[in-house]
């Protein structure tokens, strides 16, 4: 019951204290949410960059207000990333790639409103699930998160990679081709164990490998634009009108299970430091497809395929706050900035925070649902604007997206090299996509490839034996899951084929 008393004091702190005027927390949350959505929408601006740029503005604020402000930015970024994924097939965050697959497909059918509405609602519900899990189960989850050593992380990455098999049932060989290419690309750069430069061709810019965000922007935004220009005559669009009609309540009701499952997956996977929102979104997508009654609709604008990863992305934000608050360990680049920002306000996250600064922690918890409510409002109002924007003539819209994609690529590391990376991957994305090679598996491989190799080699270095991947229970469990997720879809299809041939 102490928890509820604490929460209550957290809520009351948000209504103002002696040092904080009553209007301040609410205003700050609203501004934070708006900034967060904007940052998420702009390709190239990630949550971590957005947060770091806003930190100086918090110098003069009360620590509580500063934290609430930063957390609001942080939680709304994920939603911002899904907007562009759905509207123009330009995922603002890696996690949004999973949303783009079905979301953009629905937009092409002229129903961006339905896709955006589903994503918003799923994101909000996921966010609520995530914050509830954060509030009630922080400490037990953090204990599990610490159990993840190199062997378990390696197996988690392998499990994540096997989702490709269930994601793309039509072009499985082509999907694996993209996966392999992505895995190989990710080995470019200094090797983590020996610091030996691999495949850098003497360029210092490649020491840290291909910058991920410019590559992502290239593969999706630029690749999509080039494909669009090739397929379109420029005058006649396939769909003349875009409807801003939101999904019906009955539609949302039928996908409620996907939303809650996605939320739970997001909160749990998001809590594992380093794994993050992307794996969560893809795992949720794969699970939604596996359990769906209508798996053939996936990739063609299935609402389930939009809802599950959106919910997971929304919930993983809350999840990633678990290791941040309970252990002081950043689970992602964005939470690393949060730690830095909190330090500036004389607050050091970690187990001691809950005993030394309980009111602050619970005010943060209390701000999550309030922020989510604002996000629903702003997102709802925004949907109409987005639909209008994408209805602009393509001859104008496409060059503008290219310009923003390039400036976004530049902004990631402030270097022209990343603009070249964006252009190169853009052409690659076009060539692959026009020949039916999906690019989402490449993104997944690029994220998981590094994680798999690093942890594989750390585990071998530490234990000196291959058997550790099978003797560590967490690792073994994940490997079994990986095996199942790879072969069950194949087995199911074979059965289906036999059934059909018997008929």
């Amino acid at each position, binding site marked *: 019951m102490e928890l509820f008393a604490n929460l209550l004091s957290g809520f009351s702190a948000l209504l103002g204290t002696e040092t904080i005027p009553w209007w301040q927390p609410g205003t700050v949350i609203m501004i934070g949410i708006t900034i967060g959505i904007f940052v998420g929408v702009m390709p190239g601006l990630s949550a971590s960059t957005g947060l770091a740029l806003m930190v100086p503005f918090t110098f003069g604020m009360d620590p509580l207000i500063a934290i609430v402000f930063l957390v609001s930015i942080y939680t709304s970024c994920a939603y911002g990333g899904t907007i562009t994924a759905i509207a123009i097939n330009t995922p603002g965050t890696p996690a949004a790639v999973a949303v783009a697959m079905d979301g953009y497909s629905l937009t092409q059918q002229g129903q961006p409103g339905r896709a955006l509405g589903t994503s918003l609602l799923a994101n909000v519900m996921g966010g609520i699930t995530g914050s509830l899990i954060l509030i009630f189960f922080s400490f037990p989850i953090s204990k599990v998160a610490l159990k993840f*050593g190199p062997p378990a992380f390696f197996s988690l990455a392998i499990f994540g990679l096997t989702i490709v098999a269930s994601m793309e049932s039509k072009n499985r*060989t082509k999907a694996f081709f993209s996966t392999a290419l992505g895995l190989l690309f990710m080995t470019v750069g200094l090797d983590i164990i020996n610091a030996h430069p691999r495949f850098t061709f003497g360029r210092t810019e490649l020491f840290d490998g291909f910058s991920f965000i410019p590559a992502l922007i290239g593969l999706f935004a630029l690749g999509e634009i080039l494909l669009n*220009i090739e397929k379109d005559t420029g005058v006649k669009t396939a769909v003349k009108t875009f409807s801003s009609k939101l999904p019906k309540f009955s539609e949302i009701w039928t996908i409620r299970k996907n939303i809650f499952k996605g939320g739970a997956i997001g909160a749990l996977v998001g809590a594992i430091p380093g794994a993050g929102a992307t794996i969560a979104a893809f795992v949720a997508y794969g699970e939604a497809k596996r359990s769906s009654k209508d798996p053939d609709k996936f990739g063609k604008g299935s609402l389930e395929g939009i809802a599950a990863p959106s919910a997971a992305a929304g919930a993983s934000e809350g999840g990633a706050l678990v290791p941040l608050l309970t252990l002081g360990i950043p689970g992602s680049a964005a939470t*690393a900035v949060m730690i830095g920002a909190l*330090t500036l306000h004389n607050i050091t996250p*970690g187990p001691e925070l809950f005993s030394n600064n309980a009111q602050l922690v619970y005010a943060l918890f209390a701000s999550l649902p309030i922020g989510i409510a604002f996000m629903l409002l702003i997102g709802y109002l925004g949907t109409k604007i987005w639909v209008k924007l994408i209805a602009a003539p393509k001859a104008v819209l496409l060059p503008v997206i290219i310009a923003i994609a390039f400036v976004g690529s530049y902004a990631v590391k402030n270097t022209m090299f990343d603009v070249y990376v964006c252009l190169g991957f853009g052409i690659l994305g076009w060539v692959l996509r026009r020949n039916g090679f999906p690019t989402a598996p490449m993104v997944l491989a690029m994220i998981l490839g590094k994680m798999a190799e690093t942890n594989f080699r750390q585990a071998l270095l530490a234990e000196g034996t291959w058997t550790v991947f099978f003797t560590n229970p967490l690792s073994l469990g994940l490997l079994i899951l990986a095996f199942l997720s790879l072969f069950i879809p194949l087995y199911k299809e074979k059965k289906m084929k036999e059934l059909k041939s018997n008929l």
Partner: protein
Amino acid sequence: MIKKILYCIAFSFISFSFLSAEYPDKPVKIIVHTKPGGAVDLMARQFAQIAGQISDQSFVVVNKPGGSGLLALANVYNEKADGYSILAFPAAYLAPIQTTNIGFGLEDFEYLACLTISPEAIITNRYADIKSLDQILDFAKAHPNEQKWCGPGSGSLDHLMAVKIWDKAGITAKWIPYGGGGPAIASVMGKHNHVYVGNPEDIIGRKENLTIAAIASPERHPTFPDAPTFKEFGIDLTSDVMWRGFAVKKGTNPEIVSYLIELLKTVSTDPTWKQFIKTTGVQGVFIQDDEFQEMVFRDAESSKTYLSKAGFSVGKEPPTAPMPVLFIIVTILIISSVIFYYIKKKGIEKSNIPFIAGVGLSIAISFTYISNYFPVPREGTTVGAATVPQVWALFLAFVSLLILYQLKTLSNSSKPGQVPLVLKLVGILFGYVFIISFIGFLPATFFMLIAGMMILKHGNIKTIFLTSAVVILFMYGIFYKVLQVPLPMGMFF
């Protein structure tokens, strides 16, 4: 006429000296080698804020991450020595600059002052069996080369510190590198590794879980008085500190240098700065130019010694595969022509897919070729730098061959559309990225927008210009002004 020219030259000299006397007369950049949010970045931002208040000019933090910090270093080295690009210079720069052949070195910088130091320390899990330095040493002696030490990176400051400790204490252990300090600390909290090498402030907020086994300073740390020093255990490690300071390019006007040193001194006594230093747990100091430079070069010597002890090649390039680019091109050409003949002979429907698979196969072969020259695995390990790329390459080769084998069943559903139009646009984009460095990001983008809209046949010229102008203004306002992204401005601005 000659008089006129002389007059002009004289005038420009006067105005030049006038300008330098007025330094700084435009915003000063502080280059940071990490992404926003790192410890060095936060220090630079705090400094920028206070310095901006003192000097009337704004100080802007510019992040140039990448190349293990070398890109930031190279950035300042390639700028004019005019004092408008200051480099936040942490000790972390030493190792990468020594192991890479980048064409310049530590002697090409002017060291202004060092503002924070923190002694190196080893940290253990409070609830583990091995937590005190005695226990660490006993275990390591009983089990040579089995104890697991971790920290950020390979060849990093902390890695070299570990090697130094092993050397001085006469033990052997394993170094498990992590991508950053956070995950490494988590691994000690989760008892996956025994010892974390870092700094005492790393345990702030986690004192319930972590403990400092030993600190490499002559006396006990004022903030962490419970933590013993190495000296107390009879190990001679007293002056190993992680420092963070500021530097400019060598050849900067001495007046500007002394101005900046004075500025750094004022900042180091500022109450806001002192509060910030206190929060981060490091020690605030002010170590001026000569003394700072001495410290840099002394630590560089030590770094060199322990880099070679840790098995890194210092000063010479590691072996690389001869002519990698040529190899890739030739492989692609050979495999493509083989596929071309095969298709023609078998009469398979014309498509790009076999060629994409061919390029995949070529990349797999080339990467295997290049990785054959990577260093062999260290003693006691079976997996080296080449292993994982080669496994992935094998996977790629297998899938590529599978595609070639399945060619008939893989349908090529899409019909080619307006490929020439796409190629035209791609041409414009290549021209665009090419001219950015000459005429600046925003003008180049303006031209790209107009050219792009024109070839996509948007009829209304007025809309084209208006939209382009609005986009440029948006970029200038949001990215350049508000977000302070240092877009290349080219020769006109």
